[in-house]
């Protein structure tokens, strides 16, 4: 049996000023300038959202896709704390960090898109809350989840700050927050999909189904593993560390398992509703549909057998494929597949400033990840560490 002895987490160290951080810094500065204009002059001044497509990339990419890509923490926690695969433990902190950042940014990013953002607290206030609204549930769960994740991640800060007693007390109650940190994402990731339901026939039948909460939940879990694959490879390469193949390899098997379940559910749903015909119409939606499912099927060809799973390059590509598939699923449901009737006649394509803000948001995440992994104990200690 593989040994479960793993190195304890340590800051990577090294300089914070390098090409990556500088580029991120510039992009963030541009984003800040654009946001200033947005808050002074309104959404129309910097975005292309219009009456036909009121939700653009700030909602669909920054918030929905951003949060889905942040599901690494949730997926790995499932493995470690529920299925008791303690051997994945070293993956927890980096995955959690990525999740923490992704969700905090998604939550913060909402403010850029809310037209009357100063009333945001209404979404939690009993006098205003509409409990029937899917969006209310998403907002409440995401906010709660962000708080839970900060609590889950606090041992890292407590460690760095040397507050060991506090850390011991926290650890006693940690199991509850960990459990909460799994229920909450299940709820809101599924509900992010349920948000499509009220739009009815405006969403193409390829993506509009009562099964949508299950579809979004399964893809969220699968994306989580994909993101872990992706980030492990990128971080290892960037910090010149070894890739934890002994962890990623078996994890990718789990990923394939969940992926298989998802694809079955998806196909069964399409057949049961007789919606598959839409995939053969000569239009953009059909192309997008095939692209999305190509990405979801690709991992079986990339890492379908034992041999290929030993190749980190293939694992990396499989991770990317899953992420792309998940991204496309959400993009297709809310943007590309949206618009029948009420959107007809309208075109939407993000403006340059819109794209720069989204880019800036992801830059914040990358920059934050770099700063925290270099200065806080997140990644496991490695013998041969070279500061880049």
């Amino acid at each position, binding site marked *: 049996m593989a040994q479960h002895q793993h190195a304890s987490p340590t800051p990577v160290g090294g300089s914070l000023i390098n090409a990556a951080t500088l580029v991120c810094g510039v992009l963030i500065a541009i984003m800040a300038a654009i946001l200033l204009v947005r808050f002074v002059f309104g959404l129309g001044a910097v975005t*292309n959202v*219009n*009456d*036909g*497509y009121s939700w653009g990339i700030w909602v669909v990419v920054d918030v929905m896709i951003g949060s889905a890509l942040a599901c690494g923490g949730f997926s790995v926690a499932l493995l470690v704390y529920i299925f008791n695969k303690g051997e994945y433990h070293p993956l927890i902190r980096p995955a959690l960090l990525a999740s923490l950042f992704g969700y905090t940014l998604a939550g913060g990013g909402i403010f850029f898109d809310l037209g009357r953002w100063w009333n945001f607290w209404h979404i939690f206030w009993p006098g205003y809350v509409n409990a029937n609204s899917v969006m209310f549930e998403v907002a409440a769960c995401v906010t709660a989840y962000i708080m839970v994740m900060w609590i889950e991640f606090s041992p890292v800060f407590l460690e760095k700050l040397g507050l060991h007693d506090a850390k011991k007390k926290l650890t006693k109650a940690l199991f509850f927050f960990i459990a909460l940190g799994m229920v909450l994402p299940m709820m809101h990731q599924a509900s992010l999909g349920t948000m499509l339901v009220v739009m009815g026939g405006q969403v193409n039948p390829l993506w509009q189904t009562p099964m949508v909460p299950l579809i979004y939940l399964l893809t969220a879990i699968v994306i989580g593993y994909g993101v872990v694959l992706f980030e492990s*490879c*990128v971080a290892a*390469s960037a910090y010149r560390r070894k*890739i934890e193949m002994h962890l990623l390899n078996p994890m990718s098997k789990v990923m394939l398992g969940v992926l298989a379940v998802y694809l079955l559910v998806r196909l069964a749903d399409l057949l049961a509703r007789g919606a598959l015909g839409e995939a053969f119409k000569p239009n953009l939606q059909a192309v997008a549909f095939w692209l999305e499912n190509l990405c979801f099927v690709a991992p079986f060809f990339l890492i379908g057998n034992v041999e290929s799973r*030993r*190749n*980190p*390059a293939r694992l*990396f*590509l499989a991770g*990317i494929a899953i992420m792309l598939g998940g991204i496309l699923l959400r993009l297709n449901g809310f943007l590309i597949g949206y618009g029948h009737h009420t959107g*007809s*006649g*309208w*075109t*939407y*394509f*993000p*403006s*340059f400033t*819109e*794209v*720069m803000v989204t*880019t800036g948001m992801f830059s914040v995440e990358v920059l934050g990840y770099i700063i925290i992994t270099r200065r806080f104990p997140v990644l496991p200690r490695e013998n041969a560490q070279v500061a880049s």
Partner: protein
Amino acid sequence: MGEMNDIFKLGREALHGIEQRLGMSRRDYLQFCATLAVTMGLPKGADAAVAKAIESAKRPSVIWLHFQECTGCTESLLRAEHPTLEKLILEIISLDYHETLMAAAGHQAEAARKDAMKANKGKYVLVIEGAIPVKENGNYCKIGGHTAIDLLKECAADAAAVIAIGSCASWGGMPSTGPNPSGASSVAEVLGKPVVTIPGCPPNPYNFLATVVHFLTFGKLPEVDKLGRPKFAYSRLVHENCERRAHFDAGRFAMEFGDAGHRQGYCLYKLGCKGPETYANCPTLGFGDAGENNWPVGCGHPCIGCTEKGVGFAKPIHQLATMKNVAPPLQYARIVEEQGKGASFASAAALAALAGAAAGAAVMLTRNLGLSHAAAEAERAKSEGKPQDKARG
């Protein structure tokens, strides 16, 4: 300047003759010709042609018959003032028979008519005012012992042109209002062939005058629509030229006579104005030579559609009109309009750059990972091979 030269071509003598004959100054005369040319919508310079036609000494004969009418059309003509009608019409044309205006009566009058018809055979203009009853063999209207039908057919036989003036002669008018006990019919129906019609109750006198002068000037009648109405006067709906149209477009309507909206001159559509389905030029010309605004709507009463068969004297005055021709502007919103901004160059370029950078980095990383994997596999194979060698060895 060019026009003046054309007019001088008429020669001092001719103009002097006109001054004496018509008793009007040269300037007034030229003004009249210009007015008539404009009324007919003729191109610039045509007023010279009009002047030339009128100055010729030969005055065509006109025979004017009255049947089922109220004489309103004649009265309308009598109100023309630029210049006064008796001077022009009695001098420009030879009005050889007109029951209201001529001095003679009885057998003398009928004799005059017959003589004129014989002397001008094939060359006189026949004007009909009033409808022709056809029931009971036309006995409902007899002049000099002859029925209107017979008179009409007799006079029309040798006429150069037949003009039906007024709604009654044009399509039956008021006498033909249901149940039409006398069978009042239009000139065209009785003759069995289309004629020029100048409908209206009464029509604007200048519509008739301009038609006659056109005939004199060019030797033929002006362009007419399929009902025989001159297009220069009857090709547009009243609604299209109405001065209150802006109120209609903005939804400002008078609801009752005398209410606030009515006092402010709002649209009279809700009071039954038939402008939207009536072809006439009343809003443009006005009546009584007092210019625009002097017409029913301008005075606050809805148009009753007096020129239009099936509308005037048929539809109740306050019944809502049917819109004949909506013809909205091009920018009237369609059911589906193309809107929204597509991809801009900057945006597409930025996305392409991002995608390119990401793809490039991914490809590089994949390659590196692949290479290091291949190296690791080679190492493994080598190290796996060695112990075996050792074992063997």
